[in-house]
């Protein structure tokens, strides 16, 4: 019966091509708008590292000066000296301190012109904490880091640019004038949102070169993009001065596997701040906070309220499209009365005919979904071209495609409900006389 109804649906769509096309487009447009916005929303609200997002944390410690400041939240970043001090703790299973800078990269191959690229000084734990995938090689060791080895991990894109994508482990490149030995090449890695470094956009890609954080004092590579806030009234001279200033600029994440570790870490932070107070730092009251990944994304409002409103509007628009479809289906069902009456006379029950027309509505919905998917791709391309840094957000996965078809079939069934119900309620005798 299903295949038969499918055949009948096809015949009926063929009979009124214009009306059918209008219904399909009405659904497609509504679906496309909805799916464009849902796609962006879903990725915005995505858990970027689901299997461990509740055991990795970032912390804020409030080193602001005593001057009255309404914001109850301390700075998002860590100062260099606090990061250095906290790095010594062995409470967390892993600690990553990192920031982003830009430097000129040169290959030994003369044919590759030097170019500016993102460079991230990171602690060795960065790779295992965030579970970066390696295409070749591996991260550097803690020994490399302690002994100030000039080693580098490069992104897949950088490897492609410098070496045409071959295994480049052991090769040398110059970063900001110094030679580094390549120990690892990352595979594609796009945590969305990029929770560990919201500076520079939560939806940007992470590529470039990664070098040991222990080299920072010697390198004088200032942070590029994102915020650096200095909280003392006076600042000291030079790079070494900057590193000991009350300036917050570093990202710091820790992995705390157990509840116990988490408690210990909080206590450690409190003790640390108390101890620093004795040295005349941290003039404010104790204001330390620990945020898990999702807490941090929410705290930083990665999904903002405007966007939630937009989502509501998109669904309202889909509703308007559905009302249109209901109207079109009603007008179509009027000219169907004759056929429905004949079918009733020949033994089709109300239920049988209801089923037949619902199958037809789903076919319309399916077609609307397919067209909507195409339009949504165009919509997403539009979002990409309008807003930089949305590249990662504007890709649909199979799950979103399934949602598209589910939503469009649901829509068309909803739209078809009233017209179908009405046509099945007809007294068949009335429309048999005239045809």
């Amino acid at each position: 019966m299903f295949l038969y109804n499918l055949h009948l649906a096809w015949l009926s769509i063929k009979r009124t091509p214009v009306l059918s096309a209008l219904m399909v487009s009405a659904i497609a447009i509504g679906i496309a708008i909805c799916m464009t916005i849902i796609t962006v929303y879903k990725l915005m609200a995505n858990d970027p590292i689901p299997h461990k997002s509740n055991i990795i944390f970032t912390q804020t410690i409030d080193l602001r000066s005593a001057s009255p400041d309404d914001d109850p939240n301390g700075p998002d970043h860590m100062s260099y000296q606090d990061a250095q001090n906290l790095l010594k703790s062995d409470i967390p299973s892993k600690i990553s301190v990192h920031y982003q800078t830009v430097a000129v990269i040169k290959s030994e191959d003369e044919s590759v012109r030097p170019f500016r690229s993102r460079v991230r000084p990171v602690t060795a734990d960065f790779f295992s904490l965030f579970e970066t995938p390696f295409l070749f090689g591996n991260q550097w060791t803690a020994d490399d880091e302690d002994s100030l080895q000039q080693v580098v991990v490069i992104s897949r894109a950088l490897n492609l640019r410098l070496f045409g994508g071959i295994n480049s482990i052991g090769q040398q490149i110059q970063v900001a004038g110094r030679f580094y030995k390549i120990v690892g090449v990352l595979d594609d890695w796009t945590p969305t949102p990029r929770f560990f470094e919201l500076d520079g956009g939560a939806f940007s890609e992470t590529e470039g070169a990664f070098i040991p954080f222990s080299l920072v004092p010697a390198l004088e590579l200032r942070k590029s993009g994102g915020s650096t806030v200095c909280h003392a009234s006076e600042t000291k001279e030079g790079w070494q001065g900057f590193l000991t200033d009350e300036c917050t600029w570093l990202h710091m994440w820790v992995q705390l596997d157990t509840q116990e570790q988490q408690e210990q870490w909080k206590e450690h932070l409190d003790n640390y701040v108390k101890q620093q107070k004795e040295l005349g730092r941290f003039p404010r009251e104790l204001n330390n906070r620990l945020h898990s990944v999702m807490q941090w994304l929410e705290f930083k409002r990665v999904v903002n309220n405007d966007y939630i409103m937009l989502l509501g509007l998109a669904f309202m628009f889909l509703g308007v499209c559905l009302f249109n479809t209901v109207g079109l289906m009603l007008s179509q069902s009027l000219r169907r009365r004759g056929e429905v009456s004949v079918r009733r006379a020949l033994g089709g029950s109300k239920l049988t005919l209801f089923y037949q027309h619902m199958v037809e509505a789903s076919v319309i919905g399916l077609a609307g979904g397919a067209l909507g998917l195409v339009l949504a791709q165009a919509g997403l391309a539009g979002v990409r071209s309008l807003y930089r840094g949305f590249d990662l957000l504007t890709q649909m996965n199979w799950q979103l495609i399934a949602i598209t078809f589910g939503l469009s079939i649901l829509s068309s069934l909803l739209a078809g409900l009233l017209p179908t119900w009405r046509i099945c309620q007809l007294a068949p005798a009335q429309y048999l006389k005239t045809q």
Partner: protein
Amino acid sequence: MLTLKKVSKSFRTDLVETHALRSLDLTVDEGEFVAVTGPSGSGKTTFLNIAGLLETFTSGQLILDGEDVSNLSDRQRSIIRNQKIGFIFQGFNLIPDLNLYENVEVPLRYRGIKKAERKERIENALENVGLIGRMKHIPSQLSGGQQQRVAIARALAGEPKLLLADEPTGNLDSLMARQVIELMENINDTGTTIVMVTHDAELAHRAHRNIHIMDGEAVDMEQVLSMSQHQRASKTASA
């Protein structure tokens, strides 16, 4: 085969209530070929629709093939329509997008008959009405007489016990009408009970029996004659 006991039907619109049938009593025996006649608006179509379970009625009792079918659900009524009753309408009522084969197939689909048997029945039915060669045509490519023959084939394919025809020849010229009526007589010869509404006195004569309906009641012919005389008399009196 078919018994109506004091069946009444009234249509209620916003303002007026029309009594289409008033306490109609009527019996059709198995194997009969009955013609139903009567003036326009007397309730013939209404009677046929009620007999064919296409319409409900206000009061009374309807017995079909020995079974009281007065108060059945939509589903049960549909099953009976599908299995026991065939319809032929004045306006043919073929489904325009379906070809002849598919049109005849409709009642068999609803009955859930398997593909091979469907094919056999459809081909037999179309053979019977002489249209087997045009199986793939759609209704609009046929003449009126041919369309009505397809409608008959559609009714026949289900092998109904009761065939209800509402002015089956009303839209046809006399030659076509004769072909159709001959076809129906053949069907009746195989044992199918036929109730046919007609305005055509000649066709009505070919039936075994005539039932005359006036103002929603069955009347016997003698009474009719005297009544029409009486009416004529009263009209001249009032003039």
